[in-house]
């Protein structure tokens, strides 16, 4: 961290934000769709990164929460409610369901918890598919309207991309605040050593439930943006494979790193497009790349950067020690 100057970091951040605003202005419809999808998936992955990366609670259900948010938004907006109201409902609903899903985590951990959340994921999918009075079943819900923001219609791809990007910005700030607050520290304590955390007054039960609920709520936000983005939803995108995709975004980007989800979502959403020229080999290449990455760096891409910076610090420290030692020797 020392090696990167703070001004340099801020400058890089500003350049990235400016690029995200300006560059897409002359993108075509499809490019904007992909980029909007990146923003939406980043939000969902940030939620999972909170639950899994920071608080250490394995979840294979994030895709289900994206589904809950998407259906909440689709149902409400097609009945004439404004999108912000739908987002609030999506947040409340997925927060509540996430809280309840957190209870098993108080009893089981790791692989067992993964199985519990996997079962929930399947259950949610069955509800989306079978409760057709509410969700439209396999026919789904179509003609999902896009919102008006400050009186401006966002039907066109570019304005709606800005809606997604703005939402991502708000969520990013909120998550940044959360992880550097005492709550974030308590989440990391859950991950690193729950036994010790308890003995220091950390209410591990409440924080575990909170980690699940907040992470799931962000999944709901992503879903509530996904519905107006695609303007049509059916149960298929929200099956287990979305949960696995989101899990991979978090792991590949770097679980427990703030920027991990942005990077992971970028790879998961953009790489298929870049590898399109390989035609049928895309999935194979992707699988091999992920395997190699995780063998090389189990902590993801940002893990590589972290290790490099730690190595630089160690080198600097041992250089200092060498200088100090030689001085001591000359004194003697």
């Amino acid at each position, binding site marked *: 961290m020392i090696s990167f100057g703070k001004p340099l970091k801020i400058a890089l951040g500003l350049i990235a934000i400016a690029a995200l605003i300006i560059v897409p202005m002359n993108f075509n419809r499809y490019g904007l769709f992909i980029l909007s999808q990146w923003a939406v998936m980043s939000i969902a992955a940030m939620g999972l990164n909170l639950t899994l990366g920071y608080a250490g609670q394995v979840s294979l259900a994030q895709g289900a929460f994206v589904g809950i948010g998407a259906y909440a938004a689709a149902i409400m907006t097609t009945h004439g409610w404004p999108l912000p109201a739908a987002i609030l409902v999506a947040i409340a609903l997925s927060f509540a369901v996430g809280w309840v899903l957190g209870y098993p985590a108080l009893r089981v951990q790791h692989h067992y918890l993964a199985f519990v959340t996997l079962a929930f994921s399947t259950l949610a999918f069955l509800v989306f598919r079978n409760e057709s009075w509410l969700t439209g079943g396999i026919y789904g819900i179509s003609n999902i309207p896009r919102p008006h923001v400050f009186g401006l219609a966002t039907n066109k791809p570019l304005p709606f991309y800005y809606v997604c990007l703005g939402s991502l910005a708000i969520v990013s700030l909120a998550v940044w605040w*959360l992880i*550097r*607050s*005492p*709550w974030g*520290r*308590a989440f*990391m*304590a859950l991950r*690193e*050593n729950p*036994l*010790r*955390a*308890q*003995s*220091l*007054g*950390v*209410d*591990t*039960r*409440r924080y575990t439930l909170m980690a699940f609920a907040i992470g799931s709520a962000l999944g709901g936000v992503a879903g509530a943006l996904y519905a107006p983005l695609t303007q049509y939803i059916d149960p298929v995108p929200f099956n287990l494979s979305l949960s696995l995709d989101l899990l991979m975004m978090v792991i590949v980007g770097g679980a427990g790193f703030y920027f991990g989800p942005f990077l992971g979502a970028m790879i998961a959403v953009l790489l298929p497009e870049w590898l399109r020229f390989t035609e049928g080999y895309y999935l194979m290449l992707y699988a091999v790349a992920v395997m190699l990455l995780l063998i090389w760096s189990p902590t993801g891409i940002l893990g590589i950067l972290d290790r490099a910076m730690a190595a630089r610090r160690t080198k600097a420290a041992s250089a200092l020690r060498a200088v100090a030692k030689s001085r001591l020797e000359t004194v003697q």
Partner: protein
Amino acid sequence: MSAVLEVTNIKKNFGGISAVDGVSFDVREGEILGLIGPNGCGKSTLFNCILGQLTPSGGEVRLDGKVVTGLRPSELNKLGVSRTFQLLQVFPKLSVRENLILAGQEHQGNMASRLVGRSDAGLSDAANQMIGFFKLDHLADEPAGGLSYGQQKLLDAAMAFMGGPRLVLLDEPAGGVNPSMLADLKDRLVAINREKNATFVVIEHNMEFVMSLCSRVMVMAEGKVLAMGRPDEVRKNLAVIEAYLGH
């Protein structure tokens, strides 16, 4: 002197084994009570029963006269009971300072104020003081996992004091700590005991450390209390017990 902690007939069975078998004692305000005995005699199990990490099979724990048996560890900690562990229990990826802030933050405000309030929960100064007090200044920003064993032991102890506890249960604080660091640790414990009037219960195998630090010593074997008294009395007693048990 009034009793801070009263333990009455605590029992803990694991299957057919009775790890703690009807232990009763009390700890007076401001004293340092030593707890010694051979490995496997139930010392740590007794600690875990007192601190709510294990549910006792029988008996009662009172804090300031109020029954606290069955409370969760985090609830007990909020009532001013803190502990250290026999094996290292720090948060390896957090820095030394972050470890200390974490150790104190749950005693500041409530859940809501910890979410919207300051990132350090107003504890940076207190953490820096504690870092200075335990001579960890040069390591303040290092990840705790990178510290030496002895330094992590010191950090572990320092963390137990961040919440300003009235009663601290220390499980083998001297284990694996080199002699000069041990002398430091003893000084720190005595200082906190006198200045903050904190009460300690210390499990330790290092007899010299126990006998010089503690005002009273309790001896356990096979889940029972064998002897309790001033260090010199217990030392005499120990000779008899050792002869009798053949340790």
